């Protein structure tokens, strides 16, 4: 008798596990590369207190604006702060803002999208209209306006970014729900007498989740870029907290003197983080929605 091996799935079905990832060709590798970049940056930020050579917020640890040398591998800025330490710990604000804003987006976009599009009728129309006009609005402008009104800080930044990106969640959830609602199994569930709530939670939600995961991953990248932009405008967190965005912004004043090291390294870190999330999102979207591949 042939033995049939069954693999136990540790993760829910929408999270592909690592061994299957490498067998899926380019998309799998892209996902792995993106995830590696993101995870290593997160790890670096978490371990910052132990691995950074100097206190990132301490001024005058070295000469002012010194180019990279053996003692300060990435140079120092105009306050004499060690750039390497600032690079190591500077990602925390951005990651916090990105995670929080995606969380807010999920908190608002997912339920509203599910309920409004399942209910249909006037509620759906009203929400769609509001979300569409928000979607059509220049995102950065809106985020700047809101951040200027409600003030700075991690939570406020995350909130103002979340407002900009809620419509994209709403739209993807709505389009999925409208499709799934008409599918035979959803109708069958309705015919067996399932209540609206259980259809929504048991039949529709699990099938909406993969597309939401993709949108969320891509949105991490957008949120990071928007957070960097807000900081550049002057709407970032307090200056005493080390942040790549502030380093870039401060480096602008040093440009005429040719101090390339002050902007280059934080800039590259932001690019890497955003790139990691983008790659992850692209890979995941190909893995989770195989129909879109062609």
């Amino acid at each position, binding site marked *: 008798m042939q033995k049939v091996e069954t693999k136990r799935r540790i993760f829910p079905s929408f999270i592909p596990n690592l061994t299957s990832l490498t067998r899926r060709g380019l998309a799998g590798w892209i996902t792995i590369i993106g995830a590696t970049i993101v995870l290593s940056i997160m790890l670096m930020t978490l371990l910052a207190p132990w691995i950074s050579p100097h206190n990132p917020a301490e001024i005058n640890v070295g000469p002012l604006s010194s180019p990279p040398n053996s003692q300060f591998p990435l140079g120092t800025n105009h306050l004499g702060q060690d750039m390497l330490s600032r690079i190591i710990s500077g990602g925390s604000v951005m990651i916090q803002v990105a995670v929080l804003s995606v969380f807010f987006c999920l908190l608002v976009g997912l339920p509203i999208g599910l309920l409004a599009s399942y209910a249909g009728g006037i509620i759906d129309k009203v929400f769609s*209209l*509001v979300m*569409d*006009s*928000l979607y*059509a*609005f*220049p*995102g*950065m*402008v*809106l985020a*700047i*306006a*809101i951040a*200027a*009104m*409600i*003030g700075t800080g991690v939570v406020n930044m995350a909130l103002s970014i979340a407002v900009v990106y809620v419509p994209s969640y709403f739209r993807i959830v709505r389009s999925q729900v409208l499709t799934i609602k008409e599918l035979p199994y959803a109708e069958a569930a309705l015919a067996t007498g399932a209540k609206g709530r259980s259809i929504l939670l048991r039949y529709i939600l699990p099938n909406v989740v993969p597309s939401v995961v993709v949108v969320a991953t891509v949105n991490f*990248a957008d949120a990071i*870029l928007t957070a*960097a*932009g807000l900081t*550049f*405008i*002057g*709407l970032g967190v307090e200056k005493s907290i080390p942040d790549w965005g502030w380093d*870039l912004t401060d*480096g*602008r004043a040093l*440009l*005429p003197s*040719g101090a*390339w090291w002050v*902007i*280059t390294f934080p*800039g590259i870190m*932001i*690019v890497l983080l*955003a*790139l990691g999330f*983008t*790659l992850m999102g*692209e890979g995941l979207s190909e893995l989770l929605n195989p129909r879109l591949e062609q």
Partner: protein
Amino acid sequence: MIMLLLSIVFLIVRVLPGDPVLLHFERRENPEAIAQMRRNLGLDKPLLNQYFDYLGGILDVTYLLEHGYLNLGKSMQDFSPIGQQIFSAFPATLELAIYSMIVAVVIGILLGVRASRSYNSPLDHLIRTFGTVTYAIPVFFLGMIFQLTLGIGLHWFPTGGRIYPTLEPHGLTLYLGAPAGGFISVFLWSFPAGLASWALSFVVLRKKRVKFWPRGFLVSLFPFFVGWFVWAFGAWHFTSVGILHISTGLYTIDSLLEGNIVKFVQAVRYLFLPSLTLGLVLAGVFIRLTRSNMLETLRLDFVTAARARGLKETAVVYGYALRNAFLPILTMVGLQFAMLLGGAILTETTFSWPGLGRYIVERINFRDYTAIQGAVVVFGLFVALVSLFVDILYAYFDPRIRL
């Protein structure tokens, strides 16, 4: 849609927590001054009244005609009309937006077509990677890198500002001294304008293959009179000043209208880095879109047929296939415009470009909330207008859609 947009902006600025007047005063020791300012700005009225005041102000057409700009309220900084400040900053943003969109579309189409022609080759992967990376770069970081290398390092391009201060182009200046004599002479002098539009109408009618007699002739009389009278009215209106300035506010066009090549070259030099920065960041989307559309189009039968007839590959790709793949790109131009304006704020700040984005940033530092509100409204209106324009263009290019 626009009403909704205006309401959202109002909600954000007035209803969200945070009192703009209190924020404006650093110390709160002078309640009378605060109350005075509130009265001045109309902030002491009920919220609903403020809302209707604000909507009524924006929709006030007579104000627009009288002043030449929208009624967006008074600045909290200096109590001057915001509409005027915004409309003087607007052309700079428009110019930056137009040229960076051109850069983005040109780079996107060229690289996208190149990638689709060598599908799955190393070059294809390189171009795709390039597209992904440009998407992940913060605009201002790219801008600073360009400033550092091409500006400060090589001195090829200036790193900030719109043009050298004394070189601002004035645009076309027409001296209309003669018709100032009166109504009749104005009409006589405007007769050539009528003739010109008459001639133009013949060109158009000929292109539409309308017979000259009698229909073409009769139809062409209409543009003749319209051209004549419109010009006469314009001349009559402006000769009270004696000089007619025609300026678009776009320095590259104004300097050409003025016929001053030096100013034109300088305007382009100042414009080059900002528009390249903003264009490159947007190019990724267009690369991807062009590539996927071209991949589909190049597989179609009519492309094979064109190749079979022995046409050159360039002619097949650019003349046949790209035409078909162009419509989605046009749609994307409309969609990306909103993103472009967001990037424009950051680009303007990086390059000290005196446009609307820099105006907003400056006003944020002054805590001038009415000005921020006005600028955001103008940004929204701009996006709405552009998407309308793109829809019209779409109908023009796509024979299946007729307005």
